[in-house]
């Protein structure tokens, strides 16, 4: 009927009932979620709504949207910028006691990067440099190398593995137009994900040690083959 209108205003009023506005609405009361909480299956509810449904009306602990099992201790609260506690329970369901919303599960804080000789700006720049300077290709090889070695220990993988040390070296070789070529461990720790998530094969400090072990194993296998 009002086709013309809806196409012209596309995102505002006429289509207003479409997704854009509904993304943060509780799946039960259809209001903007209050004390928002998300199930593991990803469905958003007001905590009071969900609690009330699960504990007073439903016969099973199922997500109202998709029927996935819902466990109280696996719910994830959403903490936006809004007021923290507007004692919401009295608001939405007056006369009903609803316990506090489950708290978020907080993993430990990330440990600070092992060694970081430079100030942030410099190191960021450095990371960026790696990202740009063909960090990518060698990374790929590294990964493949690691992977096939893990899977097989067969001859080709051995080859790959040998290769493995190489491009990495190249990587560190090229990037350091900057003075600190040696600090790779430290620097790999830094990125914190703002770079390519694909920062070299492993962001773990133990990687170097692992590599060494693998190299030794590789040499052993090689010797064994020679015999």
């Amino acid at each position, binding site marked *: 009927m009002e086709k013309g209108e809806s196409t012209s205003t596309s995102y505002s009023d006429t289509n207003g*009932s479409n997704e854009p506005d509904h993304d943060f609405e509780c799946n039960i009361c259809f209001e903007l979620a209050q004390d928002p909480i998300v199930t593991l299956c990803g469905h958003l509810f007001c905590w009071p709504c969900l609690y009330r449904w699960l504990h007073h009306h439903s016969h099973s602990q199922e997500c109202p949207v998709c029927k996935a099992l819902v466990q109280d201790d696996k719910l994830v609260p959403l903490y936006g910028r809004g007021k923290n506690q507007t004692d919401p329970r009295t608001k939405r369901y007056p006369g009903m006691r609803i316990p506090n919303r489950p708290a978020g599960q907080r993993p430990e804080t990330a440990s600070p990067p092992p060694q970081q000789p430079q100030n942030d700006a410099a190191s960021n720049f450095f990371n960026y440099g790696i990202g740009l300077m063909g960090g990518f290709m060698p990374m790929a090889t590294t990964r493949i190398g690691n992977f096939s070695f893990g899977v097989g220990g067969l001859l080709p993988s051995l080859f790959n593995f040998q290769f493995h040390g190489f491009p990495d070296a190249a990587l560190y070789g090229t990037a350091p137009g900057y003075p600190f070529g040696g600090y790779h461990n430290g620097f790999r720790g830094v990125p914190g994900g703002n770079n390519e998530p694909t920062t070299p094969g492993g962001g773990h400090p133990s990687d170097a040690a692992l590599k060494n072990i693998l190299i030794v194993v590789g040499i052993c296998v090689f010797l064994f083959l020679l015999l």
Partner: protein
Amino acid sequence: MSSSGAPSHKALSKIACKRLQKELVEWQMNPPTGFKHKVNDNLQRWIIEVIGAPGTLYANETYQLQVDFPEHYPMESPQVIFLLPAPLHPHIYSNGHICLDILYDSWSPAMTVSSICISILSMLSSSTEKQRPTDNDRYVQNCKNGRSPKETRWWFHDDKV
């Protein structure tokens, strides 16, 4: 006409009211195909016209659904029945009661009038023969006192239709 008068007509709670208003607005913007909401000023009882889907046994037939909302909708399911004459269907009793799990045990507050309607139309559409449930007479007799289908202990056994 329908004997199922008012199912203990307690006024809608505030939440129920707000949600129904939203559903109504959404329905008006984007009604499910094959349905017409007959406008009245009663938010608590919707009368909805169902038009049998083309190519099915009920093509070109029109029926009326009566949807009554309880005080604590959507925590509790609405009562949905066909006004008479109800379509001939193996899961629809001659008094208009519908044997459909989402209206009773499998109700979820994330469902809407619109999603119920679609389920009902789909149930109609998948029917292969126009007949009453085998226990129709017994059931209807039992409901004589105007019992709501929500008080029935339903048995959901047939997932084909």
